[in-house]
């Protein structure tokens, strides 16, 4: 029986696998991501994931938006007027004055209307109006404080996966590699996994009736088919900088700690690991990250907790409420004639 909360050193065994292989996962080191989106493309190609809309979202080079039913890898782009570490000014002919980034972002925002929550999953929901003119303040100061954050997001394959816990059909299951996978031929599209996920990863695929797997929940499988035949997941295979590293989770955690130490040594004090800790609210993730700012800057929840941690309490309260209703109904009939 799987525990609902806390560390679980052998998540596949807890799920009933006899003698499983070591737990597999991703370590996404965002400090070496160059934002090439090869992971997004490789994922779509290998897994036959349909398009997720051809949008211009006005958010830097990110026109994907968010993870969703047809987006299993998503590269985030964040532009910040801040130095990333101890880099030097090597060139004399650098641009001067404040960065245009902020003004352009604001103009892009103003041009977008509609339901932003549907960005990346519903191409109809967001309209782009005429972009208003941007006025840049003038100054001769050298511009030396700008950094780009790029990060390839993916399903976290949680130790305690709410999507799997709440799935009423058993479509979502724990593989022998410790990953969490939807069985396409079983899911009936009830949609319960979608609000259960603390990261907003899984979604129900929408589209024309002919679309592959339309109407059912879809997300990253950590390339279950490739793993079974000893290959790297498609995104890790395609990543040109090894920002996406695949391997045994235990080993990845050691590697990640060494990397964060090296970055701190090099002066990148903002580097930190995210979801690597088995004592966190989801029991640690199978896919964890090295980030360079707070998780929420990347669109990630800063302190996610699996909802089923509180499920025993919820069932208890519901039981008490049910007894109260029964008592109330009995009391309504007791005593009086009318």
């Amino acid at each position: 029986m799987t525990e609902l909360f806390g560390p679980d050193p052998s998540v596949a065994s807890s799920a009933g696998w006899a003698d499983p292989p070591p737990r597999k996962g991703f370590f996404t080191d965002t400090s070496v991501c160059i934002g090439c989106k090869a992971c997004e493309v490789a994922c779509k190609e290998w897994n036959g994931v349909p398009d997720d809309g051809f949008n211009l979202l006005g958010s830097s080079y990110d026109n994907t938006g968010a993870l969703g039913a047809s987006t299993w890898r998503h590269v985030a782009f964040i532009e910040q007027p801040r130095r990333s570490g101890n880099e030097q000014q090597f060139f004399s002919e650098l641009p001067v004055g404040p960065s245009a980034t902020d003004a352009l972002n604001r103009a892009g925002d103003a041009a977008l209307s509609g339901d932003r929550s549907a960005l990346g999953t519903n191409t109809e929901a967001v309209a782009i109006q005429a972009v208003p003119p941007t006025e840049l303040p003038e100054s001769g100061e050298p511009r030396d404080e700008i950094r780009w954050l790029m990060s390839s997001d993916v399903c976290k394959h949680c130790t305690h996966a709410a999507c799997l816990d709440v799935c009423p059909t058993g479509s979502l299951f724990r593989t022998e590699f410790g990953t969490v996978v939807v069985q396409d031929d079983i899911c009936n599209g009830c949609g319960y996994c979608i609000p259960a996920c603390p990261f907003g990863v899984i979604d129900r695929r929408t589209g024309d009736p002919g679309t592959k797997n339309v109407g059912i929940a879809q997300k990253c499988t950590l390339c279950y088919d490739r793993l079974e035949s000893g290959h790297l997941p498609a995104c890790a295979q395609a990543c040109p900088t090894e920002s996406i590293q695949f391997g045994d989770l235990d080993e990845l955690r050691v590697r990640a700690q060494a990397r964060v130490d090296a970055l701190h040594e090099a002066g990148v004090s903002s580097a930190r690991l995210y979801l690597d800790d088995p004592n966190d609210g989801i029991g640690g993730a199978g896919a964890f990250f090295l980030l360079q700012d707070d998780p929420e800057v990347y669109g990630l929840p800063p302190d996610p907790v699996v909802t089923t941690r509180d499920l025993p309490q919820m069932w208890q309260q519901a039981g008490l409420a049910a007894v109260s209703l029964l008592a109330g109904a009995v009391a309504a009939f007791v005593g009086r004639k009318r």
Partner: protein
Amino acid sequence: MTEVKRRRRARGGGGDGAPVVPDAKFSSYYGRPVLKAAPWEKDIPAYLFLGGLAAGSSLLAAGADVTNRPALRRSGRLGALGAITLSLAALVHDLGKPSRFLNMLRVAKPTSPMSMGTWILSLYGPAAGVAGAAELVALAPRWIDRLLPRWARWLLTVLSTPAGLSAAAIAPAVASYTSVLLADTATPSWHEARRELPFVFVGSAAAASGGLGLLAAPLAEAGPARRLAVTGAVAELAVSSRMERSMGLAAEPLHQGTAGTLIRASRALTATGALGALAGSRSRVVSAISGAALLAGSACTRFGIFEAGQASARDPKYTVVPQRNRIDAAQ
């Protein structure tokens, strides 16, 4: 240093209507939601209402059966049959693949409130169905009655009381599990309501079913419906305000936009209906109007809480700010 960050923080406000707490400062990725809202349509809040109505009606019908109140028994059984039939239709309609509805019966998982709910409804539905069918047959014109074989009519008559009592035994679970269905998600305004929501939902179910009893049964038999309705309405109103105080920032969406309108309507209708039910014990008309108000109030409660949760999932503020505060408090 963080001009971009401040801009993003500033965008956290969002929402319409007056904020209950001052706008919190927080970072987000271009103002986008962290979570995904449930893909559920109006089917689901409609089911929350109808399921509660069916459950309360089965309880009233069983009590009426035992205490010999035939009109209240009839309205309860027929109300339960109608409400649970519409519920099942709504639940199947809301699936992404309705043809795979039966896959719900592949497993029984205590960690999935939807799985538990499926099994609860699988027990409740046939029981409420038999009891309701017995009433339908009794009401049907003679020529329809003749179409039924005699053994079937006999079976319905014999089974109606055991079936009605069985339905009533399962009914409390039908009314309360739906609160866990909502609360067992990452949706802030549902999850943070988890302690009180079951009591709000059973109160709402009692008010709705009592309301139906007041609407359908004559004064002479409506006493239990009246008492159940008033008790339920008072419980719902009292626990709701306690719930809002315990929810922190996640209570805010209950007061804003569509959800705010629905919740305000639910309060007004439920309070008016309860007062009317108390005052109108000698008037069929006042009782009926009060019953209708209680039914409408219960529906507004369910739709309001549903919409508030959806709004809380769409705004990253409700995800990020409480989690950030938790981290800051731990340090």
